[in-house]
């Protein structure tokens, strides 16, 4: 009998424990007319600290609630579980009114065809602000309007070039000063400077242990190719889509890099080291030049250790025609792939939802999303928005943590327009200086925009490119390391054509032409 009782109590405990697992948050469906609540599914940004329940705790969103009168019910899966939750929600058919996701990468067209999200242009009379913004900035429109003239999501836009720039050439200004050298602007000047770094002992320890240039992988080192008007992957030559390796100036570029490696001017470890090792070489006074991210972290770390340490962003180097060309794609990514909001077919009042999302592109909306609440987080001085001490000089929290709590566009998790005026205030002086140097006068016309492929095109490209990139990356690295001569490029070109490169270029060109011809008036 005792045995039976114990068994029963165990079973009851088990049942109780299991029943808790079934509890889940219910989602409220909005009422039929003008809405006062809306449900949004969005990734939980890492910048939302634990104490904040959801984005309603961020100043920008509080102001937006005041402006629009719409309260938001957030469903925020953490970044690591986002895909799973997203797939589960789609599979269950139980969608929130709005879903914020990387729609471009996911292939929004697919979801529209399957009846999950709506074409926002059906409600275009309800989005005057967004239409006005698009008319004022037609260069962005090609990115978010689909090739068959639909608008399937509201995008996150960075209005100014500087906001896109976070990567570029960095050099030890103090080494240049010590050796009495000018900042290099061409490939020949760069070669001379690197040679001087190697031979003239700028770190002053009496040993020739300097590694003039370091980098991470072929992409870090490959930016040297920009000086020869070429690049590792696909880019634009006028209106033609080209693949770097097939072009003639690629040969010159690779020879230059191979020469640097051979003469010991390029770090032998670039092939396998990671960013931590690379940065370590800079902070250990071994390396003098690299292509990397803006130097805030490194500069802050070195400020106490060595007051002479100056790692600065130098202007992007010039090509033969004297133009500062870059093919680093981020520079041209003004419309971000993430943070885009689509409205689902489950939304009971899509017109109101469109109106609500549209308010994030109005003048007041953009100001609120960038600066927060007037009087509290910013004030207006001479027509300019200035952050208050609460944000910039808060004794309890760092500037970047205050930005997390204040500016809704600081991280791209919800669609609106990010302005350099607000973003720049969150940067350190080191970062801001580097970014402005890199953005100044840089020609980004050769960067291939993020074009859309159809599903069959995507599959074909993936199939060919898996082999092609394997072969191309391997050959390029072997040439730089001196294992193969530069003439191996000719063989590589033939091999790649055999692997179907012509097909791939045709697909890319067709996709680009479609993109270019997108009708942006709606």
């Amino acid at each position, binding site marked *: 009998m005792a045995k039976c009782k114990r068994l029963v109590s165990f079973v009851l405990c088990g049942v109780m424990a299991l029943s808790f697992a079934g509890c889940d948050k219910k989602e409220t469906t909005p009422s039929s007319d003008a809405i006062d609540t809306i449900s949004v599914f969005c990734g939980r940004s890492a910048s939302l600290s634990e104490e904040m329940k959801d984005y309603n705790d961020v100043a920008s969103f509080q102001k937006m609630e005041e402006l629009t009168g719409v309260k938001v019910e957030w469903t925020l899966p953490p970044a690591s579980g986002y895909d799973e939750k997203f797939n589960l929600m789609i599979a269950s058919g139980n969608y929130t009114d709005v879903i914020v996701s990387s729609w471009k990468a996911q292939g929004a067209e697919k979801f529209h065809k399957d009846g999950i999200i709506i074409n926002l242009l059906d409600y275009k009379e309800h989005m005057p602000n967004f239409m006005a913004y698009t008319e004022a900035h037609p260069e962005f429109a090609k990115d978010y309007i689909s090739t068959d003239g639909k608008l399937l999501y509201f995008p996150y836009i960075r209005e100014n070039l500087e906001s896109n720039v976070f990567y570029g050439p960095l050099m030890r200004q103090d080494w240049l000063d010590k050796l009495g050298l000018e900042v290099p602007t061409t490939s020949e000047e760069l070669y001379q400077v690197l040679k001087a770094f190697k031979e003239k002992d700028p770190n002053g320890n009496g040993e020739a242990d300097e590694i003039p240039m370091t980098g991470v992988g072929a992409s870090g080192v490959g930016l040297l190719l920009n000086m020869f008007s070429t690049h590792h992957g696909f880019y634009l030559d006028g209106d033609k889509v080209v693949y770097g390796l097939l072009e003639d100036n690629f040969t010159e570029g690779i020879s230059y890099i191979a020469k640097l490696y051979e003469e010991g001017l390029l770090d032998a470890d670039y*092939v396998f080291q990671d960013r931590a090792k690379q940065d370590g070489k800079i902070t250990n006074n071994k390396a003098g030049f690299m292509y990397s991210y803006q130097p805030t972290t490194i500069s802050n770390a070195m400020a106490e250790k060595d007051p002479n340490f100056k790692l600065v962003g130098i202007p992007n180097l010039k090509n033969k025609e004297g133009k500062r060309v870059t093919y680093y794609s981020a520079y041209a990514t003004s419309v971000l792939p993430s943070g885009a909001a689509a409205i689902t077919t489950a939304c009971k009042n899509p017109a109101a939802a469109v109106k609500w999302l549209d308010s994030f592109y109005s003048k007041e909306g953009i100001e609120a999303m960038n600066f927060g609440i007037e009087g509290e987080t910013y004030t207006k001085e001479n027509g300019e928005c200035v952050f208050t001490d609460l944000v910039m000089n808060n004794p309890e929290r760092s500037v970047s943590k205050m930005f997390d709590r204040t500016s809704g566009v600081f991280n791209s998790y919800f669609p609106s327009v990010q302005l350099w005026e607000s973003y720049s205030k969150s940067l350190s002086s080191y970062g801001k200086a580097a970014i402005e140097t890199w953005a100044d006068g840089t020609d980004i016309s050769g960067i291939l925009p993020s074009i859309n492929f159809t599903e069959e095109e995507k599959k074909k490209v993936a*199939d060919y490119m898996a082999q092609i990139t394997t072969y191309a990356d391997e050959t390029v*690295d072997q040439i730089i390391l001196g294992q193969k001569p530069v003439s191996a490029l000719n063989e590589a070109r033939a091999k790649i054509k055999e692997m179907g490169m012509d097909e791939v270029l045709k697909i890319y060109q067709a996709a680009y032409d479609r993109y270019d011809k997108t009708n942006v008036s709606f």
Partner: protein
Amino acid sequence: MTSKLKMGKAKQGMPVSTKSLWKRMVEFWEVYLLLLPVALYYIIFKYVPMFGNVIAFQDYSITRGILQSEFVGLKHFTSFLNDVYFWRLLKNTLMINLYGLLFAFPAPIILALLLNEVRCTPFKRSVQTITYMPHFISAVVVCGMILDFISPNGLVNSVLNAFGIESKKFITDPQYFYGVYTVMDIWQGIGWGSIIYISALSGIDAELYEASAIDGASRWQQTLRITLPCLLPTIAICLIMRVGQMLSTGFEKIILLYNPAIYSTSDVISTYVYRKGILGGEYSFSAAVGLFNSIINFLLLVFANWFSKKATGSGMF
């Protein structure tokens, strides 16, 4: 006296019931209840998902799900087999495994045999602990350390230079990859792998040794004639299991160690499919390759088992 030890059969001293299976299950229901969660785990998480392999024959689309994705038959398999790099990938996968079989497989056995001879117990235990610690270090850390050691200015080259040998390009010259990978494998796996052999060795009847000593056998002869034959069933099982994993070679360690300059020897099936997957979100393709690997592994397993039975008299099934 023959000692055809069959693994997993007659256990000395246990009562063998003569009732039917059902009656036994009722009589020892607590034991079967203990087994139930494990059995359910295997059924739900291993056998049922096998039906998902059907996506290897479809053009699976996540929005349309399994039932509505287009059926394409063997398209992915042919695309894989016709891939320009297929033979290279297969060769690299098999070579890494071959090196493993030749060098990394015997290493724990040798260690176990050596440790078996050690009389000083504290020494034996400390060697055991030290050798199995690397097993617990995560692959990321191990590979980071290895990259550091074999870099052009790293530890290994410094040591070589001290002996007057020129620095070798361990990480950028393809010919060194198999060696580096195998050494890392041995370093990480030798201690952990030796556990099972040490325990098998301790199960060998001491009388056999005594009897042979009386007959005048030297230590070496004892090792050859007693220890190894008694260890053979354990070795056979471990070998069969290892062969059964031949085509699914250690993906994480390779991804952390390789770079494009050494693709020619380090790019294996799983790393290539991974890169391809990133470009295209190719669920169906990876499922097809995975299925292909599993089928080949299974065939190898069956063959190895049959061979082992023929050669040593013991096998896994």
